């Protein structure tokens, strides 16, 4: 078994690295296709031909695109992500702060939403087709259907403007301690939980119901086990693979896809950082951020696959 896992993981890592390289090339090509360059976007309406030429020369934009890509790649492979063209800030430094914030928000949202989704899913199976099941589905489907910025505004209006319980702005400052940070991000966590709940809950419900059709569940029921025990300890383990897949997908979303929530609550995460630099054609930053996002997807997908294999006795004990 361990040999299988090691082989699988190493295969996946090699594949992942190749995917990353391909992603970096794609991102570079994409940024080259955008209209305008970083010098034009920095100077905007105040650009003059001389100022543009001087800025381009200083930023090294007169080099051919291909040599810019390879010199970036060479430096990146040595761990040097360089500095942002727009404001000269060290990319690794800015990025690590932003990534830390994003991971913190994603982790807090995951800690709340994943157990909640699974428990709600189990409850829905236990009371299937009765009112608790219908209510859980109705509420979670409603919250996933509302655009996330409207959810954000609603929560903000109620909690921050009317009740004044929480701050409407989630800006985190270095001097804040852990509890202050939790308070600052409470509202985005609420909104993100609403956004991801339905997907995971419905998949838990569907996967378990699928297993519940099996003969061995009937046996368990006939043995006289309680309904919840049948679901939790007999049906659930066999339904883990699809659930984990969906959980990982949502985790990836929480890390790479929350730019709207970041904007609404003014949270300094990766999303807004990437969007700003794309609109300014700041290629080195876009490359670095794009690679991190690609890596997040690859790692989480690989993890989902491995967990699925470990959870499946037939794959764990091949004949």
């Amino acid at each position, binding site marked *: 078994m361990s040999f299988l896992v090691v082989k699988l993981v190493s295969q996946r890592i090699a594949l992942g690295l190749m995917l990353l390289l391909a992603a970096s090339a794609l991102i570079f090509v994409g940024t080259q296709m*955008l*209209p*305008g360059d970083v*010098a*034009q*976007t*920095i*100077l*905007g*309406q*105040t*650009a*003059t*031909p*001389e*100022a*543009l030429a*001087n*800025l381009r020369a*200083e930023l090294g934009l007169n080099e051919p695109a291909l040599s810019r890509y390879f010199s970036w790649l060479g430096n990146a492979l040595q761990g040097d992500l360089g500095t*942002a063209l*727009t*404001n*000269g*800030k060290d990319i690794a430094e*800015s990025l690590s702060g932003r990534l830390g914030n994003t991971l913190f928000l994603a982790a807090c949202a995951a800690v709340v939403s994943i157990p909640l989704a699974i428990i709600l899913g189990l409850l829905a199976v236990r009371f299937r087709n009765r009112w608790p099941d219908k209510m859980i589905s109705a509420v979670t489907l409603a919250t996933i259907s509302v655009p996330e910025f409207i959810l954000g*505004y609603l929560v*903000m*209006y109620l909690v*921050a*403007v009317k009740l*004044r319980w929480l*701050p*409407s*702005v989630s*800006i985190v*400052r*270095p001097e804040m301690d852990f509890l202050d940070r939790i308070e600052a991000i409470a509202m985005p966590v609420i909104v993100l939980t609403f956004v991801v709940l339905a997907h995971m809950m419905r998949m838990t419900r569907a996967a378990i119901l699928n297993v519940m059709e099996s003969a061995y569940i009937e046996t368990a029921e006939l043995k006289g086990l309680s309904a919840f025990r049948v679901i939790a300890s007999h049906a659930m383990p066999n339904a883990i693979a699809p659930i984990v897949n969906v959980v990982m997908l949502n985790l990836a979303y929480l890390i790479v896809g929350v730019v709207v929530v970041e*904007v*609404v*609550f*003014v949270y*300094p995460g990766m999303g*807004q*950082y990437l969007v*700003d*630099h794309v*609109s*300014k054609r*700041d290629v080195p930053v876009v490359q670095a951020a794009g690679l991190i996002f690609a890596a997040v997807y690859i790692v989480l997908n690989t993890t989902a696959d491995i967990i699925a294999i470990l959870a499946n006795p037939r794959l764990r004990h091949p004949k």
Partner: protein
Amino acid sequence: MSKMKSQPSRRAFLGYVSALGIAAALGPVSMAEAAPKKGGTFVMALKGGESTNTLDPALSLSHVTYQALRAYSETLLNVTEDGGLEYRLAESVEPANGGQTWHFKIRSGVKFHNGQELTAMDVLKTMERHSNEDSKSGALGIMKGIESMSVDGDIFTVNLTTPNSDLPYLMTDYHLAIQPNGGFDDPAAGIGTGPYKVTANEPGVRYSFEKFADYWDDSRGHYDAHEILVINDDTSRAAALQSGQVHAVNLVSPKTAKLFARAPHIKIETTDGKGHYIFVMHTDTAPFDNKDLRLALKYAINREEMVDKVLAGYGSVGNDSPINAAYPLFDDTIEQRKFDLDKAREHYAKSGHDGSPIVLHVSDAAFAGALDAAALFQQSAKAAGIPLELKREPADGYWSEVWNKKPFCASYWGGRPVQDQMWSVGYLSTADWNDTNFNSPEFDAMLLEARAELDEAKRRETYGKMGRLVREEGGLINPMFNQFIDGMQQEVTGWVSHPNGNLMNGFIASKTWFE
């Protein structure tokens, strides 16, 4: 130092420069208002900041870096609320050689935030960085008339290629903030002579400042600390003000401003400015090279309706000239152009246009509500039988790909302190930002004549002629001037509207206090 204010206006600035020096020597002008209270932390939430921003004054373009510059740095002079000048890092200004040479006496006893003392050399270096051949500064366009610069003791001297009686106004440009050694060492370090010292610089997120203990002017910078939060989302910015998390916000949307003002602890301040929401035609490109077609379009736009619907009443109608009453030496006898479908039809017929659709390139990047304004324009033009076709352009890249490239597009101008500067950067045939490709030797000659003219009455007359010429011949369709709409808590005291910019032309943190 004193609460020195210069002359109430710029009238006969050249002739009165020496008198101004005397006024300053007489000591503080007494002010009627109560003494400002000191202390507190003033927090603003601003739209117009990205994580790509830098504190380098040369590359500052957004609202947020503009406000940050105003907090941490200073220019030689400032424009006052009534269009006059006040001395900041320059103590006095003296023209020579009929306005071709200017001597600025640099204030002594001013310290940079790094402890260094301000010298005339720092000023020279700053101006060099914005005008030398390697310059990438956004101010490069306005620095072109400078032939040479020099320093003698505490006097900084500028020699111009042609006389310019408005040179002191050029020195008020916010890009020209004085930095130690001109910012050649580290332009984005955020070190200046302003009332607030930068303590945190997180582009696109927040900037924080503390009061600079050695600041030279007691009448400015009343807060102990100051913070700027970047909140680009209109609703979130409004919520931050309503929930009391911030003291002031910029760019309140006209549609919600009235609702906003209902909250008892919030006030809305509106300012008549120089900014205008416009459509520009390239006068050298078909079909816009036809004066009758241009006039047809100018008559076919319903200005009143646009002010009502696009600006929700927060603005005033334009008159196809970039100049309005907020400028010194404005000629108010120029007839207001009205919405007139008959005249539009008449000129359109005269133009002999073949009836093919006239394409207007537009995006909300040009100004808030540009798409709505263009749709209104399309409908009113249709009533005159003029077929306008709207081409919606992506906001991303609008200023580099559409503006100044496409022959007919929506645009925005923020205005300049004086008429000379506005005309020079936007309408002189050789100007980089001549976005109507306006080319009139007559106009150019009048501009140079007015620039060197010392007699105010004559200048006013010449500016009036130039305004009429652009209104008649130019490629500018100017339906409206927008107002700045700022929101703040009632406790923010000391507000004075400034026509040159929102939030008191950027000086809200320097000039207000908590009551």
